[in-house]
């Protein structure tokens, strides 16, 4: 079932909600008008993404591409946003929704910064194509047995096309002899080590905070709710010790809490009851 986070629901029109529910009901009933359903869902996802980008220019709608002529540098940011911010993170459409927010923000900035260049047009269209393919497959999926596999395929396809777009931006910067700056993660003076994060099962929610923050909250009896950051799959920069809370589905023994430390670049996988 499609869930919209309550705190953000004011931004979503009633019309959109009803239309989305209609689409998903169609999916659940296996009705045959596949093209129409996909198009409608895509159009609604795009509308919602645009709404989120416009209403929140510091987080979901943050600048993802900019050219600094004085410094001769190209700044870009391809990092994903956490899945559960618009839809519930257990909703299958949260994956295309996240990709849609990213691509719409990128499209906005590319159109503004390099309107006459065409290096980004095809790669961006391919990302949108992979999102559409993903929506199409999710909308017409019957039963939940193949859902997880389909979602994993969706994520992989979208990630691959985003990598191509990333590469085209890098080539563009190289051709114009500009310094390429990947927008740094907002953090302390230490740059941190590049760590590849994997979460299994993929849609399980893992939240984390610095261990010092956790100790301070516990000591001062402050609720932890506002302190968590969502752990995003992919490459992130981390250093030091952290406290995490993995919200596994109930059938996988429910939530798990603990600490982990990053001392060097590498990979970290969050799995129920064990972390490697």
């Amino acid at each position, binding site marked *: 079932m499609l869930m919209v986070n309550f705190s953000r629901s004011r931004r979503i029109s009633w019309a959109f909600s009803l239309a989305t529910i209609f689409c998903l009901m169609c999916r659940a009933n296996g009705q045959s008008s596949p093209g129409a359903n996909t198009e409608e869902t895509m159009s609604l996802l795009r509308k919602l993404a645009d709404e989120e980008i416009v209403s929140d220019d510091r987080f979901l709608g943050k600048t993802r591409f900019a050219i600094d002529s004085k410094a001769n540098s190209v700044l870009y940011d391809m990092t994903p946003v956490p899945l559960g911010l618009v839809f519930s993170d257990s909703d299958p459409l949260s994956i295309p929704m996240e990709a849609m927010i990213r691509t719409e923000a990128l499209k906005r900035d590319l159109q503004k910064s390099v309107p006459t260049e065409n290096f980004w047009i095809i790669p961006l269209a391919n990302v949108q194509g992979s999102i559409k393919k993903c929506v199409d497959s999710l909308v017409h999926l019957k039963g939940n047995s193949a859902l997880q596999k389909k979602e994993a395929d969706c994520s992989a396809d979208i990630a691959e096309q985003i990598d191509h777009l990333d590469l085209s931006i890098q080539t563009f910067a190289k051709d114009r002899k500009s310094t390429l700056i990947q927008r740094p993660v907002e*953090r*302390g*003076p*230490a*740059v*941190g*080590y590049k760590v590849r994060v994997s979460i299994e099962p993929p849609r399980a929610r893992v939240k984390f905070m*610095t*261990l*010092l*923050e956790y*100790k*301070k909250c516990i*000591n*001062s009896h402050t609720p932890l709710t506002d302190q968590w950051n969502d752990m995003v799959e992919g490459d992130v920069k*981390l*250093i*030091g*010790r952290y406290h995490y809370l993995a919200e596994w589905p109930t059938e996988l023994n429910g939530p798990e809490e603990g600490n982990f430390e990053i*001392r*060097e670049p590498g990979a970290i996988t969050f799995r129920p009851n064990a972390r490697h």
Partner: protein
Amino acid sequence: MAVSQLREFGEVLADFRQLSSVMLKGVFIVPMATIWLNVAPPPVSVTSVSTSTLELLAAIWVFQFWYKTSEPLLERRMKIAILSFALGLICFLFLNQSFVVSPGSGQGRIIEGFNVRPDVAAVLNSNYRVEDALRDSEYDPQKVWTEQSIAIVKNVLLSLWIFTFICLTVSLTIFVVLQKRRSFLPAEA
């Protein structure tokens, strides 16, 4: 008069045969080399460029204003400069050891403060020390110490670093001036 001093200064910079001239040029280059060695107080590149510029100004100062100063006075100033250099270096190394930490390979060095934030002080104990708190805050000193104390340590370290190198430049420049003067004296019969 000034043209003569400028010429002297130019000759020293152009001279690669005299050991003292080479050493003086080396002193200008050393702070720049610290960019690669990563030993100057952070931000390393800014510190290194500023230090080299101030060293050059110090050398110009000595040539411009102390070139005609009597030899005993110059020798006294040179002694003071050498002692100040030694003292500055010791103080810098001590503070560097006490307040600068490296989070790990490939990471920039962090300058600590001396006054722990009250919210952090509340969680510290014999098993959980301030070094642990720094590691547990992504090595962000501002989450552990007060901003004021970090700024004081930063400025003291930076001032000591620049002071030490200026003292070295001044002593070496005076040495070069004295050597040049002596080379102009007629040989003893």
